[in-house]
């Protein structure tokens, strides 16, 4: 199977031809107010309905409405659609839609040589050209000669299309994203129904908007047919995915659903305390919509209150979860320590973004790994898990909850902006096959003479009993002061502090015996093992696949569990001559592996606020294999 785009010669053809591709990467770019995210999502859903495999990469500025027409204001949405199981949103767009000069300038360098460029010509006026920093109009100066350019006067065509819809003034041009979408639908043989149905539902309360968007969409579609905007249209056939029922899901939505599923599987009410923060807020939004599941969402006054309320809810017997991003995790640090000391079960979601400080709020990084493991005062160990893709966030959420409840510990779940806002087709799990992760509350005294001993540990898990307020006879006090083993009374005794420190560490380390071993993907007899975690899964697996297609042997391992590591990890690492660890940080996992096992590895590290291109990982693999 090839994963390079087919080349077509369209110059000699007289009529519009259909070329079959195995995959194509499309990027829509415009002002952050131009509706590029909406258009991209609609194209994605239509492609999902058509049966393609796909992966998406939205990119938008942190500002809600950065100055119109400027480079900082450019928002884009990239989607790769394929007839096979692709793993990333693609390195380079084959097709770029540029709604204005700034969008062109910000994205042209990424467009594949010879790629298709659809431009909204009417936005290329003097004012917009100046704002984007163009001295000459790139549509006229010959600088686009290496691309197939489709020039469309999108604004007047949109105006004409929506003139009878009833929308007025500035709203008229709002529909131009649907014009562009219509043109793409024609160019790629997308079904129209999913988009039309979505528009009707979404804007049901505003019939004039429904009419305008549908008119613009159809106008774009018909513009393709009637003008033969290009001599070639493209067809990417449905992918051969494993049988099942599929949906297209983003990571934040899958994570939120995973939490609801975890509460269901734990037979506990879900409490989600959170403070709005990019890019984690959508988890709060999704859960707030699901009150009919009994979900209690609490929008706290700050990050500290969010973790505080979550600890309170955990004490009360809820499946208690808080979600945030790096800056918020920093503020929650003291609260998480309290949860470590009180040994209460909770899940802390960190949707990582670029840092330090406010950093790059809308860009992905994997720079919080060491912070998740060690970012607390005192000896404060806890389990850390990471989601590897949007749909994987569902499973990891359930697994994080399972570990939290079984071991009475806070658990940090790492996601990142790529997973959170990216989407992929997801084969739905069978709800009745979800694991039972429920744990019993303590109901009877566990000590002599009817005493309750809140720190009498389970001999297997080392978990202490969970006795929730309201249970007669088990009244007890928790707190942040060191606890005496067994009784839970305050203790300043040196030997006790050592014992409790060791017990907390052992409890977490022991979880290694309760998680699946790592599985080696690819060639077990290869000399090179590529080790990754989190959202780099797609780039790493795709790069390894390409290297294999070139005749090389490569193996990969992807870690869901970052603390503790799976028990077989050391043996697996030792069975390869070379280890490569690609990470969107300066080498945090690599440092952990070396610290844990004294095994050296090579890093491929990038902290640019953008994911790895498959080619970057592939080049590194090939370079190492040449040695």
């Amino acid at each position, binding site marked *: 199977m090839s994963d390079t785009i087919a080349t077509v010669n369209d110059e000699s053809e007289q009529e519009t031809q259909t070329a079959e591709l195995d995959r194509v990467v499309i990027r829509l770019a415009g002002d952050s107010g131009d509706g590029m995210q909406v258009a991209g999502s609609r194209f994605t859903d239509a492609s999902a309905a058509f049966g393609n495999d796909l992966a998406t990469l939205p990119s938008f500025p942190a500002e809600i409405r950065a100055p119109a027409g400027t480079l900082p204001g450019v928002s884009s949405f990239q989607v790769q659609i394929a007839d096979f199981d692709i793993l990333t949103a693609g390195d380079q767009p084959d097709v770029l839609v540029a709604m204005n000069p700034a969008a062109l300038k910000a994205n042209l360098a990424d467009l594949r040589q010879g790629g298709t460029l659809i431009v909204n010509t009417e936005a290329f006026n003097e004012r917009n050209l100046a704002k984007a920093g163009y001295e000459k109009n790139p549509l006229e100066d010959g600088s686009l000669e290496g691309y197939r350019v489709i020039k469309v006067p999108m604004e007047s065509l949109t105006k004409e299309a929506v003139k009878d819809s009833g929308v007025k003034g500035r709203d008229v041009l709002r529909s131009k994203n649907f014009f562009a979408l219509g043109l793409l639908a024609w160019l790629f043989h997308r079904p129209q129904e999913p988009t039309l149905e979505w528009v009707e539902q979404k804007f049901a309360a505003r019939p004039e908007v429904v009419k305008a968007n549908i008119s613009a969409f159809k106008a774009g579609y018909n513009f393709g047919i009637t003008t033969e905007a290009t001599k070639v249209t493209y067809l990417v056939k449905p992918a051969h995915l494993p049988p099942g029922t599929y949906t297209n899901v983003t990571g934040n939505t899958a994570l939120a659903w995973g939490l609801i599923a975890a509460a269901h599987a734990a037979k506990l009410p879900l409490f989600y305390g959170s403070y709005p923060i990019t890019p984690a807020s959508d988890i709060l939004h999704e859960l707030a919509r699901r*009150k009919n*599941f009994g979900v*209690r969402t609490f929008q706290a006054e700050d990050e500290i*209150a969010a973790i505080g309320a979550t600890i309170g809810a955990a004490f009360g017997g809820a499946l208690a979860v808080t979600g945030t991003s790096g800056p918020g995790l920093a503020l929650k640090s003291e609260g998480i320590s309290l949860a470590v000391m009180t040994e209460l079960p909770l899940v802390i979601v960190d949707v990582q973004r670029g840092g330090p400080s406010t950093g790059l709020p809308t860009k992905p990084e994997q720079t919080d790994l060491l912070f998740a493991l060690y970012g607390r005062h005192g000896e404060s160990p806890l389990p850390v898990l990471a989601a590897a893709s949007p749909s994987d966030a569902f499973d990891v959420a359930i697994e994080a909850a399972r570990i939290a409840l079984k071991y009475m510990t806070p658990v940090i779940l790492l996601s990142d902006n790529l997973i959170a806002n990216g989407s992929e087709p997801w084969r739905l799990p069978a709800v009745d096959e979800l694991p039972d992760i429920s744990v019993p509350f303590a109901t009877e005294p566990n000590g002599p003479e009817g005493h309750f001993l809140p720190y009498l540990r389970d001999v297997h898990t080392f978990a202490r009993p969970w006795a929730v307020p309201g249970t007669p006879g088990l009244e007890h*006090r*928790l707190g*942040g002061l060191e606890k005496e083993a067994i009784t839970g009374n305050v203790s300043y005794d040196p030997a006790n502090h050592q014992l409790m420190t060791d017990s907390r560490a052992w409890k977490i380390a022991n979880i290694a015996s309760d998680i699946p071993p790592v599985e080696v993907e690819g060639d077990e007899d290869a000399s090179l093992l590529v080790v990754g975690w989190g959202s780099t899964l797609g780039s790493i697996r795709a790069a390894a696949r390409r290297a294999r297609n070139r005749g090389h042997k490569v193996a990969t391992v992807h870690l869901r569990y970052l603390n503790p590591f799976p028990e077989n990890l050391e043996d697996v690492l030792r069975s390869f001559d070379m280890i490569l660890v690609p990470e969107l940080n300066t080498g945090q996992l690599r440092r952990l592996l070396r610290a844990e096992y004294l095994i050296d590895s090579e890093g491929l590290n990038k902290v640019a606020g953008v994911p790895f291109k498959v080619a970057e990982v592939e080049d590194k693999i090939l370079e190492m294999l040449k040695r």
Partner: protein
Amino acid sequence: MTTSAYTRADFQTDQEVRWCPGCGDYTILASVQNFMANMGLPKEKIVFVSGIGCSSRFPYYMNTYGMHTIHGRAPAIATGLAASRPDLSVWVVTGDGDALSIGGNHLIHALRRNIDIKILLFNNQIYGLTKGQYSPTSELGKRTKSSPMGAIDWPFNPVALALGAEATFVARTLDMDRPLTQEILERAYQHQGAAFIEIYQNCNVFNDKAFIELTGKEERVHNRIDLRHGEPIVFGPNQEKAVIFRDGRAQVVDRASADPSEILVHDETRPDPTIAFALAQLSHGPHGPTPIGIFRDAPRDTYERLMASQIAEAQQRLGAGDLEALLRSGGTWEVT
């Protein structure tokens, strides 16, 4: 009060109480334990949550559920507990540093939300556990280890702050006045929603006699203004002083010279907190004529009731959550 099978001893723990001898906290602990015993609420339904500071050791000495948490965060932790467990009676014990300095944000938000937690703020106007720095309620010019030339921070008036956050129940009492404290605890318990009780508490080690103008035998008759619902606000050895509301503020006048119709009649239930706020401003700290009692007891919907009603409404409208349907809610397609 209701009859109860409990005695004060049922609420005492086996932990040695470790406040300094003579600390006002002992009296407050006794008042709370007596109140709980009289109240008759099953003790497993009661939770005490505290932050950090001398007063925050309180939960260790109450044989109920409890959590001694981290500095300033008790209202947030109590909020999560109360929101997820409306069946419990959740009490917060905090101090002036804990509630008003490091935890100021959580306090005002708990109060504005009207979450059903009862906040007991032990105000001794000093940092005790860290050995004597000035606190956010220390008077201007207060000389302490961290303010050798006198504090230059304008102090908070906790009652005014709570009223500014539109708390629905706001009261002030004194550690020594056990009957009043118990009466206010019971009223706070009966109140639906957040209750804020400032308790003037003497720290005999670092800030002794801070409240002497309100507790001293000689002084108190001149300074203590007892607020009683439905009664004119008058005080003094012979009730010769009165409080009127004029020019947008509460003022102390000679009763004899006042037009009787002008004398404020205390009404805890005014929906608008303006008059209560004006009363709170009569004194800035426990100096001169200072109102004691319940400033405000005005009902408003509680956070947890609104939360529960939204859940009930969603379930009625959409049916109980169906996980299978949820996973399909974004549209699906079949691959065969």
